[in-house]
């Protein structure tokens, strides 16, 4: 199979995925107890007022009519109006997406910078004290809730030392870099721990593998072995893992965004769920599905490039 037709077939596979996502999210939000009317005017409205709101929002239509409308509108790129924010869903999402995207990329960058070198050091000193120290240090990042780490960083580095602003997003690129450094680091402490563990494990596996032993026996210099075999194979699994955890990463920023007051989509999603804002939850989920699908596609492509075996199958 050529790369192009592989690419196209992967692209086509996104369509059914997308349909499934639409059905699941549509059913799921309506299965949540309570509805937008209750969430909106809970402790104030009379029964008639609630009925009025439901009527206005079209919640009294038969469920299949609502679903039909949802599919039709989505196909035309109209995600409806947010009930909570009283504005078009697409507009709201595009306002909020940059902050989350910036944070996600920033933290991936951090994670690779932290995890990459240390994983090699740990792997090559396997089970020595250096290895155990590195792994224990990462374990702290992996096991501490983000709201706690975030708060500690904010308390000491931002509020006490005044090196960073206490939360927020800023207006320019450099301000974003400054404001988001602590939240990115918070997320990275967690992601880098996962990447480090995996990378270390695959480096060890490759180093032990026969072909590497063979290369070594042939007398190839160590840096060439590391570069050619170890690095490439370690990359394959890291790319898979990054692809897999990108979903986690983006929804994991939900709590981080709240603690650091970053106006991103994670926090928006939480607000949307608590407001039973059906259009906004649906819109965010679909946007998320598109983004993650694209990332998966990219990881698949990169994997296929790195590992020709996968392309054949």
């Amino acid at each position, binding site marked *: 199979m050529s790369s192009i037709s592989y690419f196209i077939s992967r692209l086509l596979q996104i369509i059914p*995925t997308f349909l499934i996502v639409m059905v699941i999210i549509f059913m799921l939000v309506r299965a*949540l107890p309570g509805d937008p009317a209750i969430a909106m005017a809970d402790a104030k409205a009379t029964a008639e007022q609630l009925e009025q709101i439901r009527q206005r929002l079209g919640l009294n239509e038969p469920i299949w009519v609502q679903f039909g409308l949802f599919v039709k509108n989505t196909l035309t790129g109209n995600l409806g109006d947010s009930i909570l924010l009283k504005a078009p869903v697409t507009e709201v999402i595009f306002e909020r997406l940059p902050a989350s995207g910036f944070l996600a990329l920033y933290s991936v960058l951090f994670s690779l910078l932290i995890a990459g070198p240390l994983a090699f050091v740990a792997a090559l000193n396997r089970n020595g004290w250096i290895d155990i120290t590195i792994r224990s240090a990462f374990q702290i990042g992996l096991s501490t809730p983000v709201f706690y780490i975030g708060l500690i960083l904010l308390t000491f580095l931002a509020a006490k030392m005044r090196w960073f602003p206490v939360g927020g997003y800023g207006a320019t690129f450099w301000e974003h870099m400054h404001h988001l450094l602590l939240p990115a680091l918070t997320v990275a402490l967690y992601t880098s721990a996962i990447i480090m563990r995996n990378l270390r494990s695959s480096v*060890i596996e490759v180093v032990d593998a026969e072909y590497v032993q063979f290369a070594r026996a042939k007398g190839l210099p160590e840096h060439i072995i590391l570069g050619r075999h170890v690095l490439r194979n370690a990359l394959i699994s890291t790319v898979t893992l990054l692809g897999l955890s990108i979903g986690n990463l983006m929804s994991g920023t939900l709590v981080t965004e709240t603690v650091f007051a970053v106006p991103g989509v994670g926090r928006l999603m939480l607000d949307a769920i608590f407001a039973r804002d059906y259009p906004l939850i649906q819109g965010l*989920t679909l946007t998320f599905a598109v983004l993650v699908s694209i990332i998966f596609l990219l990881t698949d492509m990169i994997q296929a490039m790195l590992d020709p075996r996968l392309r054949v*199958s």
Partner: protein
Amino acid sequence: MMLKRLLPHKTQMLVLLRPGFLVGLAILLGSLALAIFPAAFAPFEPNAFNYSALKQPPSFEHWFGTDNLGRDTLSRVIWAYSVNMQMAFVATIFALVIGVTVGALVGYYGGIADAIFGRCVDAIITFPFLVLVIAVVAVLGPGLTNMYIAITLVGWVYYARLMRAEIMGQMANDYAAAGKVMGYSDRRIIFRHLLPNAITPVIVYWMTDMALAILLGSSLGYLGLGAQPPQAEWGVLIAEGRNFITTAWWLSLMPGIAIVLTGLGFSLVGDGLADLMRPRG
């Protein structure tokens, strides 16, 4: 040749004597003891108020201090072990079994099953994980059992995807083809030949996942969707203590240390097992 693959090599058994693995094992066994017999270790009743000892710093009487209701922090941290260790295991084991089985079958047979399955997995993975869990818990109602169901509903796909990729990688190896030529049943090839070789990354991931399950359970506890108060749970304890991070640091730090230690135990043991089970050429 096949037998050798299943049983660890003699030199590999030495892994079990390495300090990392031993420390990890000690931590996990200790945690398990605390989880099973909390009453034997906790000096106080975990939910008993003591109005005359509010927010007291660590002392000889209260090693980890007391909280804003005068409850003994050490006792609460210890009682939380049963909840959190249960979380680590129950929230992951079903996901592991389902994921590994499905992933192996799909990876081996491929074809239509793989295609249908791939789309379902993609659909679940493209969903924001935490959001799906929050939504499922909201629908089923909060509480630990429903939280486990929610985490399993989502969690198994990660194992399945990992397993499928590994199996497909293994099938490119000679021995899988050899098995077919020798007329072994599919079941035997999958579960006796491919699986043992492909399981290493899954086990390593499982150990990480157990630590992650504690963390996820804690986040959900923080959002009020996990353990129900006044039951002590590390995430809830940290969340309760975070308003006092500067005035009563012990409230959040002590459960924090418990989470980190337990996570470290899982990770060290996981790495040891990975070394042990890594097939030798």
